[in-house]
């Protein structure tokens, strides 16, 4: 598993990210590695699913930034959660704050958004190489509340030891569209685990929303089910 951030504490204040765009795409993965890529305290879904979630935030305490996450869709207890395997961010200050404040393993990268009437394309580059190229096409309008966003779990080194840091962003969507996803580039190792294989596209969406990163309330032991391994902070 890739290196993880170190949190000095759990007292990062809430962060407002107004008028952000969120592209979310879900792909099925083979079942062969579905349990190996998540900590023992989490359970993968059936079928295993990889969610690529990209934020384009024009306003933040650190200026404009984009963040792209690769998340395994899991269950923490009986709750749906995206376990962040890897992340990329194009703003150094934001990357550092997201890592040390909320546990995002946000490595620096170039992130390019191309928005046309009928497509949105996101490319992530690092060291001259394209490590992700995701396209969503043929938008179909949805109600703002039709897109489901799961809470986030970031594995981080915390004052309590290794913990899954639960992040519950509040996402107040104002517009949403469904897209047909296409993944034309994906370097699995760059996203945290070489076994990742998002081979079957399922769906994508683009949502306009106000995002608020809320203060951390819960952490979980990664080697224990959430029913007994959850700690309030």
């Amino acid at each position, binding site marked *: 598993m890739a290196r993880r951030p170190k949190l000095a504490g759990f007292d990062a204040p809430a962060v407002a990210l107004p008028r952000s765009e969120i592209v979310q795409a879900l792909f099925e993965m083979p079942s062969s590695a579905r349990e190996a890529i998540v900590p023992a305290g989490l359970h993968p879904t*059936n079928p295993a699913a990889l969610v690529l979630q990209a934020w384009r935030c024009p306003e933040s305490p650190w200026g404009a930034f984009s963040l792209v996450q690769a998340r395994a869709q899991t269950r923490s207890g009986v*709750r749906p959660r995206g376990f962040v395997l890897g992340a990329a961010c194009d703003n150094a200050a934001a990357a550092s704050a997201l890592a040390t404040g909320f546990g995002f393993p946000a490595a620096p990268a170039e992130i390019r958004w191309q928005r046309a009437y009928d497509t949105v394309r996101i490319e992530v580059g690092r060291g001259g190489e394209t490590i992700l190229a995701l396209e969503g096409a043929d938008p179909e309008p949805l109600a703002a509340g039709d*897109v*489901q966003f799961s809470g986030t779990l970031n594995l981080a080194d915390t004052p309590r030891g290794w913990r899954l840091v639960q992040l519950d962003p*509040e996402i107040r*969507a104002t517009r949403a569209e469904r897209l047909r996803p296409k993944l034309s580039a994906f370097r699995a190792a760059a996203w945290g685990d070489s076994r990742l294989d998002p081979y079957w596209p399922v769906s994508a969406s683009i949502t306009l929303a106000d995002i608020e990163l809320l203060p951390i309330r819960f952490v979980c032991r990664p080697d224990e089910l959430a*029913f007994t391994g959850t700690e309030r902070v």
Partner: protein
Amino acid sequence: MNESRHESGAGYVEPPRSCLRPAFFDFVRPDPRGDCATAEEGRGGRGDALKFGIFFELSVPRPFGPAIERQVYENALEQARLADALGFDWVWAVEHHFLEEYSHCSAPELVLTAVAMQTKRIRVGHGAVVCVPEMNHPIRVAERAATLDLLSGGRLELGTARSSTWTELGGFQVNPDETKKTWDEFVRALPVLWRREPVRWNGRCFSMPERNVLPKPVQDPHPPLWVTVTSPGTELDAAERGIGCLGVSAASYQEQERRTREYHRRIQSCNPVSSVVNDQVATLNFLYCHEDRKRAAELGMRFMGAFSVANSHLLWTREAFPTRAYQSLANLAPSASGSGATNPGDGVALPEGLCIGDPQHCIAAIKRWESIGVTGVNFLLNGMEAVPQPAVLDSLRLFAREVMPQFRKEPTTTARALAGAGQ
């Protein structure tokens, strides 16, 4: 007015023949002009005693293998035989595909046939057939159902559904946007396909030139139709079509009361898919009955917890594929300013009115369900084989001995409750 009872018993009454136009059998929709009288006559069925059923998901714990799957199936058949002997009214079997651990019941018509061959009186129910053409062709549904009705001697109840997991829909490459529409076409087509004459159909998800679909069901005109109710609003779909509500997820008393009230109100002006109306409302519950409350709680909660955790591992359609056709939880990460971020340490939220306890507890819970207009209660008996089979069977016996008689001797209680609901 024809008040003859349907062969199934409660809640199923034929309208006057004058409601049917001579050309009815060539039409794909029933004549709406007869519907109001039909729905009105459907009221009579709910004066009958509360019905009880058992509900099979056929959950299989890991590690998988032929031995454990066979054991689960054999246990279910033994439970069905006992339920038949004890006087339970229904045994239901789901149709699920690819749902590891949660349900290994992908061929319910075979399971129900085995049950029918080993029982005498209990009714056998699809809980439910998935009405999606990529999974089941409507003609094959009609044929298999009629065959099962024949083999069971007219004991089939046909629940219908459209699946709610991406695990299943994705496996068959189904477009989630279409499932509500295909379900609607199935429930309109099936009564037509069961007619005694050759029929033709020109629809959205299937068409056929004039053919006689064979065999025909024993029950006249056909087995009672139901729809599984998970999402709020489906009870209205059921009412509008004059078919029964088969609850398959736990709802609170308040929510079930609301659904039942709205269902009974709406069905009065239904446009039924058939010449008969099934106005029954059944809910799903968990059953573990033991004289010792503590023991009941220990084993009952164990199986309920195991089953619920297995349920949570499924990839729900509304999670994987944004669509208007499946109600989406707009945000699964609630604001900390409300009740607080969801605590992953919270286990399964306990549904209200569980029949996990001693007989008195079960009686009280069921009386509450009865009071809000429910006409039947179906029970999950085990999950992941968490309860040993002898204990499951003992629970059934105790329930039949101590609880069921409380609901057999006062059939008018249900009628009074329904009258109180403003029907």
